[in-house]
């Protein structure tokens, strides 16, 4: 496991929310795929750790889940972002931007 994946752990909820907001309802495996694809395979979180993060967001009311049957006749749990989730996403994105800008600034000036 690389260092990048470790720091990724904190950002995982943010990424998942963003993807659900942009791409519509997805199951956990789909979210993982999107993260990996969109980061050009640079972000490879431990796949299992996505689920506790999703479940915590579900309990917080940011996303909601539903069991559906896929084309391959498998039962999958599909997540969709809620109105509260969108508000949280906005706030979390702003926090992330401001934090990474600050880190960037320190890295440059140090």
């Amino acid at each position, binding site marked *: 496991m690389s260092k990048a994946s470790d720091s990724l752990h904190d950002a995982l909820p943010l990424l998942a929310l963003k993807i659900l907001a942009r791409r519509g309802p997805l*199951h*956990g*495996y789909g979210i*993982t795929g999107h993260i990996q694809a969109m980061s050009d395979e640079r972000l*490879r979180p*431990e*796949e*299992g*750790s996505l*689920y*506790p993060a999703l*479940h*915590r967001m*579900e*309990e917080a*009311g940011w996303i909601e889940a539903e069991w559906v049957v896929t084309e*391959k006749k*498998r*039962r*999958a*749990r599909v997540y969709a972002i809620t109105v509260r989730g969108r508000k949280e996403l906005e706030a979390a994105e702003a926090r992330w931007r401001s934090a990474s800008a600050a880190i960037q600034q320190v890295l440059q000036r140090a």
Partner: protein
Amino acid sequence: MSWLSRIRRSLRPAALIHELEEEQSFHMLSKADDLAAAGASLGAARREAELAFGNGLSNRQSSQEARSIRWLTDVAFDTRLAWRDMLRRPGFAAAAILSLALGLGAATAVFSLANGALLRPLPVPQADRFEFIWRQAPASLQMGTEEIPWDRDVFWKMQAATAGPGHAFASLGALRPGSMNWTGEGEPVRLRAVLASAGVFAALGVRPELGRIYTAAEDQPGRGRVALLSDALWRGALHADPAIVGRTLDLDGQAYTVVGVMPPEFQFPEAAAMPAIFAFQARPQIWLPLALSSGPLIPYESAELAFVGRLNPGVDARQAAAALDAFRRRSETEQPRGKGWFTSRLQSLAAAHTAGLRQPLLLLLLAVGLVLAVACANVAGLLLARALARRGELALKAALGAGRWRLARQMLTETLWLALLGGGLGALLALATLHGLQGLLATALPRLSGVATDWRVFAFGLALILSSGLGCALAPMLLLRSGAGDLRGGKGTVSRGSPQLRTALVTGQVALALVLVVAGGLLARSLQALLATGGGFDPQAAVAVKLSLPQSAYPDWSQAARFYQSVRTQVARLPEVVAVGVNKTAPLAGDGESTIVRFPGRPADPEHPAAVNYAMISAGYFTAVGVPRLAGRDFLDSDTQASMPVAIVNQALADKFYPGAAAVGKQIRIPVDPQPRTIVGVVANFKHHSLSEQVVPELYAPITQKPWPAMLTMSLVVRVRGTPHAGLPAHLRDRIAGAVHAVDAHVPLSDWTPLPQLVSRATAPQRLALWLVAGFGLLTLLLASIGLYGVVAYIAAQRRREFGVRMALGASRTAVSALVLRQGSRLALGGIAVGLLLAAAAGRLLQSYLFGVRAWDPFTLALAPALLALVMLLACLVPARRAARLDPVETLRQD
């Protein structure tokens, strides 16, 4: 909603775990499919997918924590384990639950008694600032009562001196008991009345539920024809008439206008909280203006008043007492002859409400605390034994990684469930017991309008359940700390540490049981002594009934006296009647008058005036009540106002004032009488309030000679031929009523009371205390014997091998039984020794409840331990016999 589903997922975790697993496997299957589609072999694709997924179990646990409530899941799990265990060992569970049910039930029952009496708020705002102002009898009088009534003229002076803005009291009021004949709807009905000045209601500050309180302007002599009704009277006899306010009632021949109805919980004054010298009746039905006049007393006016007041804001009881003391000093200066008669004592309504109840209830709570302690010790002992038996299992669990906390939690959950079940069963037992004792409770504790089972009882019960559960779990948890994780403790070794704990528990149980059995014994002996002493009269085959004359028809006392004389003649004519007489009150029914007497020819001692009780009675009264005449004669019909004034005295008076001489023929004088009276007879002492009272000197005058303002209500006592103990047959009652109504058809008869009932009413508090304490004593005895049985059986089981060896070496079966018995009796005797010490201390607490028996009563202190020893011996017999039946070969082959 989300909370509900979280709780549901916590209670049934299996469904959630299944869902999480399904989601994970979908992920891995999809990934494996994608990898296989990209060209990997099926096996490699699966491995790769699992590897990328990471630790499935730990992720599932994190999810479970997010989606359910961890502790609830744990509790649900432990609960399932506990129930499974209980069902697997129903005997153990039943013993534990029953022990706790008995202990918790008893505690809850007593608490709900205490709750009703002590904790429930009074229906009067700020009851601690509403004060009774009791007049204190001069110490030299020895009247047998500390509180005496005030006079009318003192009220006006005290009000002027201590009430109003800037004074101690915001308002002052006076009241006295009364009763009214209500006519208008069929038979005349006697109403329990309170005559209260408007100031009483101003001080109380209670609002009526209908209408208004009467005003000070209505509380004036010549006016005051207004009435406040109790809720019970309004709802009962008046059928909750919604237009009651403004209606008139015919009371003693006068029309009274109803101005209001008081709320249901308003019962002022509470008769039981008032000194016995005031004849207030329980549950007043009607409140009327006192209409206190000024000027000299008029005939028929009873000036015997109780004073009440509400403290002004910012004034405390101490300052009010100082103001009353200043009033006393001023009054004594103005009236030097009244020195000593103006002393007062303040008692708040809150204090009066609990006076005399607090101590017995606290004592009961203490007793019930002992029962609960013994019950808990029992359960702790049972749990300990089981924990020891499960040592192997516990050690295995610990070895497999269960933390001590985890094991302790498991035990705690189990104990709490036992306590909850026990508590529930106990609550049912408590309700049933209180229901069974209701009749006795109502007479012994008249101040309880009912046993209050409200949220306080529920909260107390729950707190008790939780703390007793914790307490019981403590012992086996101590065992855990002392190293249950030791797998090596094989079956052959006898563990030493834990039996000590159980031994201590059992010793304590036996000791506490002895304390309660001794207390029960002392109370039983007291009751026996009380009943043996008796009331000084023969209650069998006699009945008392109250006659109330309407004042309008009997405006002067001689008419009333003639009425009673005619009633006596009429009733005596009935063939079943042996004797008949009248007195103000029946024996043991309380109430009485007292006076100072002088002895012609002896110098008066103003420092120590001779005070005696006195009563006006008719001829035949002593025979009717069954009080033996010791000397002289009874009153005769020929004792009239025209003949020589006569008196009868009781033995106490004769002994005190004529020691060593005959009282008959001597003269005695009541200061208000114009002439001294000649004593014509001496009767035996008899009692007026309780069987345990100190008998005081008493003087009787015939109603035919003595003006008697309170003669409107008298008690008629009739002794009949061979009436069974149960009471008067209805037809005889009708014939007596017929004889009375032949004289005056408008006189109501009320409160038919067989005299034996007066005696049993007088001993109700003692009987209640005896029932409860003896009941608790037997309970603890039962619990302690179960506890002892458990320990002895356990130790005997541990020593099986040793017994087998002994038998193999030639020890007889009796010798082996004796070994077990010796061990049991050592425990029991230890407990008895400790218990005797505790009982000696407890006896001192009981002192004020004992009559005719000392706290250190040799009979009780010998019998109680003997009883205990016998029961304990029985408890040890079963394990002793089992040990004797052991097969030595079998025991040696084991292990």
